[in-house]
């Protein structure tokens, strides 16, 4: 059995891995783990990732979780073009810097924006207070601005003149609130131009394919009570 990637394209980090693997022609078996059906909580999946989260990788007997670790593993194993994770000490440090920063900041805001704006009310049937939604969107705004001011600045891509892992992780995060109907690129021409460059570098078809599910998040049918019960406490912990 070759490389297996356990993904649900509803999830931001899964999209980054999917795009990266496809773009670089890395051969893999896609194992879909349907999050809204709670498949990540199954005993079978916990054999692959006891932490019960996607994405997860299985390469022979070797299993791995955490999207940043998976992206780095694929980068090293498959010897992808240098620009994804440059050999140059300082350029590489810039990529590492973004990949470290985003966990508690942009990723968190993007996740909360999706859940507070769409997933709680539509999928779980749980209304969200306007104050909470407003606070979440305000925080998202702060983090998107930081992305532009501190990381992108006047460069073509986040870590320099070429696309890297940092851009892939950032763009897939931002598509979460986009899927929720938030206009994150509006009034941000610099960021919008960057988005277009990233999409072009990845390939428009691949980008569209990876984002088909998230862009339909508003249309998810409501969860049945059993599923809701199963997912609720983990969702609340996830978006904390």
């Amino acid at each position, binding site marked *: 059995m070759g490389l297996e990637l356990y993904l649900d394209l509803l999830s931001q980090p899964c999209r980054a891995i999917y795009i990266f693997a496809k773009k670089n022609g890395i051969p893999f078996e896609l194992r879909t783990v349907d999050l809204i059906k709670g498949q990540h909580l199954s005993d079978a999946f916990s054999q692959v990732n006891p932490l019960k989260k996607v994405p997860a990788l299985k390469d022979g007997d070797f299993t791995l979780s955490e999207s940043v670790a998976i992206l780095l*593993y694929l980068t090293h194993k498959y010897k992808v073009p240098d620009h994804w994770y440059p*050999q140059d000490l300082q350029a590489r440090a810039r990529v590492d810097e973004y990949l470290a920063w985003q966990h508690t900041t942009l990723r968190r805001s993007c996740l909360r924006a999706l859940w507070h704006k769409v997933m709680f009310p539509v999928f779980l049937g749980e209304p969200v207070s306007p104050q909470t939604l407003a606070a979440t969107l305000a925080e998202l705004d702060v983090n998107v601005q930081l992305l532009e001011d501190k990381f992108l600045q006047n460069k073509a891509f986040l870590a320099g003149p070429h696309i890297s892992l940092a851009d892939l992780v950032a763009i897939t995060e931002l598509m979460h609130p986009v899927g929720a109907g938030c206009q994150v690129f509006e009034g941000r021409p610099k960021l919008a131009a960057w988005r277009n460059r990233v999409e072009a570098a990845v390939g428009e078809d691949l980008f569209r394919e990876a984002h088909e599910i998230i862009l339909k998040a508003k249309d998810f049918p409501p969860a049945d009570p059993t599923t809701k019960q199963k997912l609720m406490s983990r969702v609340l912990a996830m978006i904390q």
Partner: protein
Amino acid sequence: MGEGTGPGALARHRDPGLQLASCGCGAWHRLNMALELYMDLLSAPCRAVYIFSKKHDIPFNFQFVDLLKGHPYNKEYIKINPLRKLPSLKDGKFVLTESVAILYYLCRKYSTPSHWYPPDLHIRARVDEFMAWQHVAFQLPMKKMVWLKLLIPKITGEEVSAEKMDHTVAEVKNSLKLFEEYFLQDKMFITGDQISLADLVAVVEMMQPMAANYNAFLNSSKVAEWRMRVELSIGSGLFREAHNRLMQLADWDFSTLDPVVKEKICKNHYYQQAVMAPICNPSTSRGGDGRIT
């Protein structure tokens, strides 16, 4: 010039005082020029960078950015790191933030012993996995414990609700359980027989709640033994020195906290997120109108 050009190769330059090395990226880096490290050892990520740098005799100037005096908000520091967070590194004109990025940078530039960040694909992945996981699942609960148990009461004069305290203790215990069962298991260190960056980052995070008199190592003898091994590998003297300021935090006179600094701390984005966010208990995550808050 020099003896080879692969990673770790050293070179003699015309200037005998200038030591150069190649880290494998093809460029030559000045090794003996001191770095600037902007830190306050109250912060766990700063301690990781401090310990690693001292352990490997990496030349640096300790730029003390006093968290208790609000120095991260000073104009001078904002120029270094507009995010006002610690640690930051300055190497000539190159400024780098995020302790994980800094640790990787130091490993590569100074060609530290390979067990810290092993070249083997699978073993390195285990380090990367922990370094990614710890931001949310480990660092946040440990930090929260110090805020809720020590800092909020000291700064505001008010105790935090028992419910919130219990919840935070449960979060810390859960992350320790995951650490033991998934990352450490029955190994000596996270990657196996030798210490790596993952152990260093884990141990400094686990030490954080000590400031609030909460000993995270009491939960499990396996973890307590691992901590001793890590401390010995680092060197007890260095370990203790790095944690001195943290261990004295409870004795600091909080009445001397500048009101402007107090306000900034309470409004700080990260404080809000780590501490003030509502508990994720389904029965309490609702406002009076039944909606999610």
